[in-house]
């Protein structure tokens, strides 16, 4: 990984009240990415959304009964690439098994990962013994 222009590392309790904070960080960061030639306002919304969805997902999959459980979110920005990593300690899930939404018969759930996959350039989920990591890349 090239040296970071900006790196943000946040650890939050597994509570949804912190989603606003995480999303807002993404929104502010989008405004600092000078090299981005696209629509900066749209990027701000998309980073807010992707961070909100990824963090909410990690909170949902966390061990509910462990009040000490946390989610760690790392945002790493280089000149041409933004990488988000969301670490959780839950049971994990199979990213490939998450179906694309059926647009003719929409369901209430399952749109979060669809947003992440649609708005970003690469998404991987790796399960490891010491925790799981959802890695999201957006080329700038």
């Amino acid at each position: 990984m090239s040296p970071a222009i900006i790196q943000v590392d946040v650890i939050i309790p597994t509570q949804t009240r912190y989603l606003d904070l995480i999303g807002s960080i993404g929104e502010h960061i989008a405004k600092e990415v000078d090299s981005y030639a696209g629509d900066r306002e749209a990027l701000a919304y998309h980073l807010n959304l992707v961070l909100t969805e990824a963090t909410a997902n990690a909170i949902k999959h966390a061990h509910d009964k462990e009040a000490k459980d946390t989610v760690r979110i790392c945002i790493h920005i280089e000149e041409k690439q933004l990488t988000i990593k969301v670490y959780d300690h839950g049971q994990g899930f199979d990213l490939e098994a998450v179906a694309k939404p059926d647009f003719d018969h929409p369901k209430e759930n399952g749109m979060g990962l669809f947003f992440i996959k649609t708005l970003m350039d690469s998404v991987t989920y790796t399960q490891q013994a010491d925790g799981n990591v959802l890695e999201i890349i957006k080329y700038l």
Partner: protein
Amino acid sequence: MNFKLEKLNDCQVLTIQEERIDAHNSAALKTELLQLVEQGDEPIIVQLEQVRFIDSSGLGALLSGHKQALVKSGKLLLVNIQQPVLSMFEITRLNRVFEIYGTINEAFAAQS
């Protein structure tokens, strides 16, 4: 979830008084919408003018209300959606599922 509920022109008008709908407050929105659907058969109009951010759980809460209204032969309409929020309906094609109006008066006119 902060909101204002009014009865106007034989419609239940729910004005969302939040800038953000996400997994922290969407369950409350879903509960409120389901209660409104249960309570009466007037059309429900959800005003989203103040909302500048919605996530998948917020869309899911609105979709839940919409589906339940259909089951009860009722209606759930959305009005005053800001463009960035509307984009989320477009990406998920939910703009084809919901009845969406630019203003509340357009929504009233469509009911008469």
